[in-house]
């Protein structure tokens, strides 16, 4: 059964406009219509100038994050009728500069991400460049970071974070989660290289555990938890000069051994 729902959509082009406006559109939706479907319908039938960023439409790419009825959500992962509201307010993610309409600029967030070196770092550089074997992990070693590896970098957590809204230099939950995800990996020994950034004035210690990041995460990553675990990891390694983590050594098993009959 189809229902008519009113959408109030934020419209703003900072390059030619001074103040933003709200446009009202009416869309017929059914049980399965997502907010992204409705916005694309608006774009196709009512306002072709509406700017939206999206890609996969199945909550994997993390491109369509926006404020829907005042809360950070993925438009493709939010069904209109589940919001239980006659008027749906759609606006760009807070805490980010607006490029146009619902599209926000993530370049600062990604440059912060690069600063924490979000990749496996090992001391055996030669082996990293020319691998001769593989690094075997125990199941519990995998579980120590698996939840945090589910991050799709949609940026909803950083938009919800109250510290990001006051301190623009704060690394943000997404970046700190990424730093923990790699530092907790038993194949990685790069925490010492990440410390100058994550253990700085605007690093993980500025998190006050409001946990707003975890409440909006569409993948259940829980960045608030990873930041607390990162604080514990830094304290034990940096102050007590002790790490609980075992760094796995290279296995003599060949890099790739696939054989078919």
């Amino acid at each position: 059964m189809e229902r008519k729902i009113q959408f109030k959509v934020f419209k703003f082009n900072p390059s030619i406009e001074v103040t933003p406006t709200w446009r009202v559109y009416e869309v017929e939706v059914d049980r399965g219509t997502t907010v992204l479907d409705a916005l694309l319908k608006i774009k196709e039938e009512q306002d072709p100038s509406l700017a939206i960023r999206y890609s996969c439409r199945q909550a994997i790419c993390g491109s369509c994050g926006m404020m829907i009825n005042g809360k950070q959500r993925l438009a493709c992962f939010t069904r209109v009728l589940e919001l239980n509201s006659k008027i749906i307010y759609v606006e760009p993610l807070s805490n980010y500069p607006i490029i146009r309409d619902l599209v926000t600029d993530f370049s600062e967030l990604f440059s912060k991400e690069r600063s924490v070196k979000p990749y496996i770092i090992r001391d055996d550089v030669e082996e990293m460049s020319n691998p001769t074997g593989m690094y075997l992990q125990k199941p519990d070693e995998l579980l120590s970071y698996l939840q945090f590896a589910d991050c799709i970098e949609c940026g909803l957590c950083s938009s919800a974070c109250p510290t990001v809204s006051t301190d623009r230099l704060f690394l943000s939950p997404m970046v700190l989660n990424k730093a923990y995800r790699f530092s907790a990996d038993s194949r990685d020994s790069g925490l010492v290289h990440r410390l100058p950034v994550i253990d700085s004035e605007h690093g993980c210690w500025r998190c006050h555990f409001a946990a707003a990041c975890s409440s909006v995460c569409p993948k259940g990553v829980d960045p608030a938890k990873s930041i607390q675990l990162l604080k514990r990891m830094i304290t034990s390694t940096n102050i007590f000069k002790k790490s609980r983590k075992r760094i796995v050594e290279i296995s003599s098993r060949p890099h790739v051994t696939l054989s078919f009959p």
Partner: protein
Amino acid sequence: MRESTKMLIHYITGFAILITGAIHLIASNLKTLEWIKTTPLYPVSQGIFLATVLYHALNGLRVILVELMPGYRSGKIISYTLLILGVILFVFGSYVLIILFGER
């Protein structure tokens, strides 16, 4: 000093405030335990109380200001201003404690 070290001291001083503050409150308000004030360790606990309160309060203020005024230069200015303020307040507080307990 690394941020982790500053924050670890912040948490330790918070715990120390709880203990030394409790000693002060008990000794000042419970008549049966007033004898605590006459022990030689009491002035020491009050000295620790002064130092820990100053560190905890000023570091808390630093954290708030660093968040509200982000920037490498402003961070340095805030930290050094509060460090100087802390030293002045500690010297003044210690002078008061010496006068207070020196009379006994």
